[in-house]
């Protein structure tokens, strides 16, 4: 067993656990996008950053790929963490403003403006569909093509691949496709609707913790 401290709480977890899993076990919520408990960790969206404290200095690490270590000291909600997280979500919103998941996250984090040019790519390249297809369906019909800003999720030559069994899992697991933001217009890149008007039905990163959920969702992001 590995002993570590997360947000001041000491815990013992099994070796090979990630910091994200350990935190969730303890009921500490860390927002995620590319992470899914049924898929291999990917470490791409960087929303789950946590602060790893080592003596008098610290660094940010993606908790979904960070293995627990003996004596590790983790902060999941420090100023450094929230500042970085907010900017990442702001960047993501500018490239995929019509995701309800992202808009809700932004609202919960108190982002009040997207300062970047909106370039709607309709995808955050979290790769959940790609991993789902490969790992859960053992199919591998979809994947990434290109690199950098030309990177996109695609099927080979953009036709339905032979491997596809029409399971629909790729759409189901997508944090953008299934949960599209229905707002008519965005102000400064934000819809703001869910934060101010509509109640959030369930916590988006719900781990079954006992905390009550307010209409604004968890305020802990």
């Amino acid at each position, binding site marked *: 067993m590995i002993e570590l401290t997360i947000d001041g709480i000491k815990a013992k977890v099994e070796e090979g656990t990630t910091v994200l899993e350990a935190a969730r076990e303890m009921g500490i919520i860390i927002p995620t996008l590319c992470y899914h408990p049924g898929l291999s960790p990917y*470490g*791409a*969206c*960087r*929303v789950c*950053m946590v602060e790893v404290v080592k003596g008098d200095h610290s*660094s*940010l*690490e*993606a908790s979904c*790929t*960070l*293995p627990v270590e003996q004596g590790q000291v983790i902060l999941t909600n420090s100023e*450094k963490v929230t500042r*970085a997280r907010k*900017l*990442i979500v702001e*960047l*993501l919103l*500018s*490239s995929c403003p019509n995701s309800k998941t992202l808009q809700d996250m932004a609202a919960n984090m108190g982002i009040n403006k997207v*300062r*970047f*040019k909106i*370039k709607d790519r309709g995808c*955050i*390249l979290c790769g959940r569909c790609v991993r789902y297809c490969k790992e859960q369906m053992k199919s591998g019909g979809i994947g*990434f093509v*290109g*690199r*950098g*800003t*030309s*990177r996109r999720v695609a099927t080979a030559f953009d036709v339905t691949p032979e491997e596809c069994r029409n399971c629909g899992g790729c759409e189901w697991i997508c944090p953008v496709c299934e949960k599209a933001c229905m707002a008519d217009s965005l102000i400064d890149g934000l819809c703001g609707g869910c934060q101010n008007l509509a109640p959030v039905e369930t916590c988006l990163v719900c781990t079954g913790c006992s905390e009550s959920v307010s209409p604004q969702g968890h305020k802990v992001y």
Partner: protein
Amino acid sequence: MRSLRSAVELEQLRVKILSQRKPEKPCISICGGTGCHAYGCEDVAKALKSEMKRQGLSKQVELKVTGCHGFCERGPLMVLHPQKIFYQRVSPGDVSEIIAETVIKGNIIDRLLYIDPVNEEKAQSEEDVPFYKRQQRLVFGNNGLIDPTNIEDYLAIGGYSALSKVLFNMQPEEVIEEIKKSGLRGRGGGGFPTGRKWDSCRNAPSSDGIRYVICNADEGDPGAYMDRSLLEGNPHSVVEGMVIGAYAVGAHDGYVYVRLEYPLALNNLGIALGQAREYGLLGQNILGSGFDFNVKVSRGGGAFICGESTALMASLEGRVGEPRPKHIHTALQGLYGKPTNLNNVETWANVPLIINRGADWYSQIGTEGSKGTKIFSLVGKINNTGLVEVPMGITLREIIYDIGGGIPRGKKFKAIQTGGPSGGCLPESLIDLPVDFDRLTDVGSMMGSGGMIVMDEGTCMVDIARYFVKFLTEESCGKCVPCREGLDRMLDILTDITEGRGKEGDIELLEELGGLLKETSLCALGTTASNPVLSTIKYFRGEYEAHIREKRCPAGVCKALITFIIDAEKCTGCGLCLRECPQEAISGEKKKPHVIDQSKCIRCGLCRDSCKFEAIIVA
């Protein structure tokens, strides 16, 4: 050639090779590096060959096409042994005179000598040329002495003696200890202590005992080409270093990952590996020691990110070059999940030197934290473009002025960019900075692989920052958000600034994004990507502000912010610019000053380029 079976046989062969070579025999060594190639050294070599044949000298005079000599500015380069006469800018037309005068009569042809632009003194040999005088060419200097396609040339200068020493007189642990003691740090960018890396790889658990060593020759930093020149010019030194490293960490398989754009390096390396195998210096039972080591060559696919170790390994496994989180170091779990030791070309080439001359000798060179020499490629707005090898700790000023000969056309030095796209731009106030790993990091730049790009007053620092960010945007693999989206938005902002759409708050937003990249990116490409932006903001903030507030590019580079004007006093009305202008924006009568119609001008610069009277000025 029968495979060598022992250290004694290697030494016997060396004695034999040396006895067949007469040091007094005339030998013409021509630089065959890529720079000189482009200048046409092949034609010079061809002309020499046929001239020697015509004169019946083929037997008496040896002709050697070697690797890069370093002084690329002055190519094609030639050194005539045994007198070591150094000729530069040689053309095929000079060949018959060189044979008749210098080779046969021993006379020096004055016009082919290098003339020091400062004191106008003529230099007869390489050592007299200021460019070479201040260098300490321990690793790179052998390039000029050997034909890279002939292993016997490498053996003649003591090649593979370090390997033999290691295999028969040293335990692997002792080798690692020696490298540790030497203080050698990785020449590829990070500057990680090589000995420690080897140590963790050797001690990493491997269920089946398999370990790998890799040579990273995917040199991708624009403006850096020392690794290519080493592989082209002295591939055996790299191979020897790798075999020693493999012995030390306990690996029996290795890979060299070579950039595809380096065909000559691939060719020469392939030949070297073949010869090393043939001579029993590579493969099964090396030199009869019982140690086996094989090397495979892998061609890169053209992706800067593959210089990153985990991306490189992914690519070796046939996957796209996407980095993975490095919580578990590649020394423990690298290629195919096995302990893997990766070093770059220059690091490997340092290894035989350390083994031969000892860690104590090696660690005397350099500074406290950075030992040995480093090869830099000195390029950009500099008089003497080329590869320079200097001891760590030398100042930027010595490199730029003493070796590099200063800035062309009397222009003013403005900045030097070190460390490639992940490095930073350093201003004139830091010109006396001693160059080593830690000092460069301290001031917001880095050693990187050793590119040094000199910039003068005609270089716009915002444009340079934009250039690097654009480069990195294209080279980012696109996996993690800060690097993919963050760089893209930084590019948007920088483009706006250079095109006159900059606004208040842009600089601060760039700094904020830069900080995010540093802290949250998945791999080193992302974490260092903001260095060029942050360092130019730090040292040249005023230039950013001029672009944003005054819509002015002080260096006269950013097209949207400049205008071309004809100086009526200098214009002779020759009409050349008028004919060149693709927009028909220039008008004027013959022999009378012309004018540019600004509404038509696209600022392509063809007119300025064509003007012989410097009458077209940028405002």
